């Protein structure tokens, strides 16, 4: 008898439950759904705006309802989580060298955070005035 090499099947649905690093990865990927949903809500808002003041204010009301606020809160948390985890791995994709000196990962990540901060300030400024 020789049954040959043993191929251990993995579950195509549940593989990510196997290790915490896979679960963390799946959470990161899932956050993009909320970011997508928020973007969709924003597009709806624009569409409503094109329909007139009343339509837009109905959309604003919906956004201010408890469900709307909860959705916004979740989407914001998801966006933060996604951005932070993404910025933290960004140094893997970007390797900057000056001679034999390699720019430390913290600088690359830091530059991302700085850029984020700048853009946020800019947006806040535009929105305020």
């Amino acid at each position: 008898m020789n049954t040959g090499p043993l191929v251990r099947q993995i579950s195509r649905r549940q593989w990510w439950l196997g290790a915490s690093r896979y679960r963390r990865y799946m959470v990161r990927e899932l956050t993009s759904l909320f970011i997508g949903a928020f973007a969709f809500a924003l597009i709806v808002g624009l569409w409503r705006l094109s329909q007139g003041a009343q339509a837009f204010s109905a959309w604003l009301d919906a956004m201010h309802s408890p469900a709307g606020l909860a959705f916004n809160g979740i989407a914001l948390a998801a966006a933060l989580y996604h951005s932070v985890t993404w910025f933290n791995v960004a140094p893997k994709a970007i390797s900057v060298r000056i001679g034999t000196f390699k720019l430390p990962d913290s600088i690359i990540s830091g530059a991302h955070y700085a850029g984020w901060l700048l853009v946020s300030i800019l947006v806040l400024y535009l929105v305020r005035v």
Partner: protein
Amino acid sequence: MSRETIELVVFRYNPETDCEPAYQRYQIPYHHDWLVLDALNYVKDHLDRSLSYRWSCHMAVCGSCGMMINGEPTLTCKAFVRDYADSIRIEPLANFPVERDLIVNQDDFMSKLASVKPYIIDTDDVPLSEGEELQTPAELAVFDQYTGCINCLLCYSACPQYSLSADFIGPAALTLAHRYNIDSRDDGFRQREERVGSDDGVWQCSFVGACSEVCPKGVDPAAAIQQGKITSAAHYFKKHLMPWSDS
């Protein structure tokens, strides 16, 4: 804490006698300075000569003894028993077919490695008599980290993409392709790109990053692959937007 014995729970499979794998328990003496590999060698020499596994250098450089220790891909010659609880579960590397006990089949990796042409492709044929090709420490530093791969395959074992898609070239082979692509002496990018930039190459990586977490030599395959994606994308756009260019 003083421990006198510990237990190894070892995955056993012999294709000539077993239809299913089973776990076998061994009680062995505890030594503070023992590696998990030493514990396995104790089993082999004193308790059960039928246990099969690979090992050689005992110093984390030959890459033979990768196994799953408590579910984590690990070199058993770099893991001390003192760092584990009293029972240690040892299984063959995940994502590879098991030939026997703790020995997996590595053919897939060997052929994938060969397929990315992991060697210098130098188009100008300078005779050897002209001496070495110059390469500054800065040029060396660009790829040096990626030369450190010992082909232990822990990264394949940790990679969910590889477990789901058998065609994925995988972390170590892609890292070595990148290592040659960015070597100042090499002109082989375009030849490798056919394979590296294909559907089975860098674009299958979904950047879980597990490969870099388990790498025992700090090679960081995830970084090599992400950088490979950037060069691959740049090459794609250059080829299509500037067809007259020579890249």
